[in-house]
């Protein structure tokens, strides 16, 4: 009978302390009744192997104890779809952030070894995010707050014929804007991006100082709009209206910057004035093309968002 006591003690260790004594007392009676019944049938005491088999049949102590717990699952069927969707979004955001960081690292000439030193391993971040999403969902499950998750309104669904912006796209744009803000406020040095270090020095022309705050405000707006899309992609009308405004503001800003005519100041102590003038001219041509491109892209995006807004409006009946 020592085996039964060991078995019950193992179950008791996995039960809430308050209930352990009571539950194991009841299970002791069940097991002894089983043993007696078997012995009566066999007409002899059970061997050690037979008793072991009986206990194995009764169940693993951890499993038996766990059935008495209030919480039977970390994430139940009600929360599971939210866990899965949340995981997809969170991992999409991580992928977007790393994509931008890798592109930026490539542009800045950061070696893979330096990149590894500066940023945590993407696998570690993914596992952390997995754990965080799981923890949050388990919290909802544990606190019984599943209603907060499952509450929804049909009117908040995107119109059937309109494709909302993907969360991955919004995450990538939001990350790019965040990186831009960090660079714009001075966390990255502009000189890091000079293609010919030592040969020339490139500084930003005064026009960028004039537009410093409007551009910063635009980038912050960009991050906010992306966050809005990530949180509620189905709200197509609002998202596309705000995006339209954002791209229109961007186009106007760039058009204003374009009027300056001179965007970079190139100097080089070892260069002749003629060479420097030529370099300055070439840089300005490149910038003019780039900024014009930016204006056109912004205008095209504004038009695309306007079309999305129009389609969403056509398909969503106005509230009565």
């Amino acid at each position, binding site marked *: 009978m020592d085996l039964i006591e060991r078995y019950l003690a193992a179950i008791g260790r996995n039960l809430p302390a308050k209930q352990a004594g009571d539950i194991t*007392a009841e299970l002791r*009676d069940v097991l002894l009744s089983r043993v007696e019944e078997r012995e009566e049938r066999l007409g002899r005491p059970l061997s050690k192997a037979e008793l072991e088999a009986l206990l194995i049949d*009764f169940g693993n102590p951890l499993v038996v104890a766990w*059935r008495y717990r209030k919480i039977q699952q970390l994430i139940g069927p009600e929360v599971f779809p939210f866990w899965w969707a949340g995981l997809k979004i969170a991992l999409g955001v991580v992928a977007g952030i790393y994509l931008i960081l890798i592109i930026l690292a490539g542009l800045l000439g950061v070696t893979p070894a330096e990149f590894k030193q500066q940023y945590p391993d993407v696998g570690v971040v993914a596992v952390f995010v997995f754990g965080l999403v799981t923890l949050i969902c388990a919290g909802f499950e544990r606190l019984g707050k599943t209603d907060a998750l499952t509450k929804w309104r049909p009117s908040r669904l995107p119109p059937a014929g309109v494709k909302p912006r993907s969360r991955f796209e919004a995450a990538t744009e939001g990350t790019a804007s965040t990186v831009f803000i960090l660079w714009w406020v001075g966390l990255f040095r502009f000189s890091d991006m000079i293609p010919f270090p030592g040969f020339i020095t490139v500084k930003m022309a005064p026009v960028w100082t004039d537009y410093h705050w409007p551009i910063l405000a635009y980038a912050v707006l960009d991050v906010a709009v992306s966050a809005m899309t990530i949180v509620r992609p189905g709200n197509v009308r609002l998202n596309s209206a705000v995006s339209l405004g954002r791209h229109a503001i961007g186009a106007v800003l760039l058009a204003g910057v374009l009027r300056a005519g001179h965007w970079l100041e190139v100097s080089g102590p070892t260069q002749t004035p003629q060479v420097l003038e030529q370099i300055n001219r070439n840089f300005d041509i490149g910038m003019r093309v780039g900024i014009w491109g930016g204006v056109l892209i912004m205008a095209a995006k504004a038009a695309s968002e306007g079309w999305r807004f129009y389609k969403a409006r056509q398909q969503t009946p106005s509230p009565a």
Partner: protein
Amino acid sequence: MTHSMPTETNTFESLRLELRRGSLILAVLGHLRREHYGYTLRKALADVGVEIDEGALYPMLRRLESQGLLTSEWREEEKRNKRFYRLSAEGQAVLARLTEEWAFLNVSIIEILKGES
């Protein structure tokens, strides 16, 4: 990569278990109109063809008790302390409603199956 397809027997077995699982509580509550301790309850259920795993039965009894549907007391019988369960007043009311629900569902299902045959 190979996927094991569920056989018809496996599918039937899993559906059978699912079908029975929902009715086990009704069977347990129904039997506990008379006092039982866990072991005799399980045997009584088995005698009428309702097999229930002990690992599921005892936690279920605790849960029903914590929901106020059962009362229990420790008493000595056959030289051992046993925990006896019985339906509480609240349990009787719930059982009556569940029985009604069961009867309604039963009639509906039979009607559906008759129509399909």
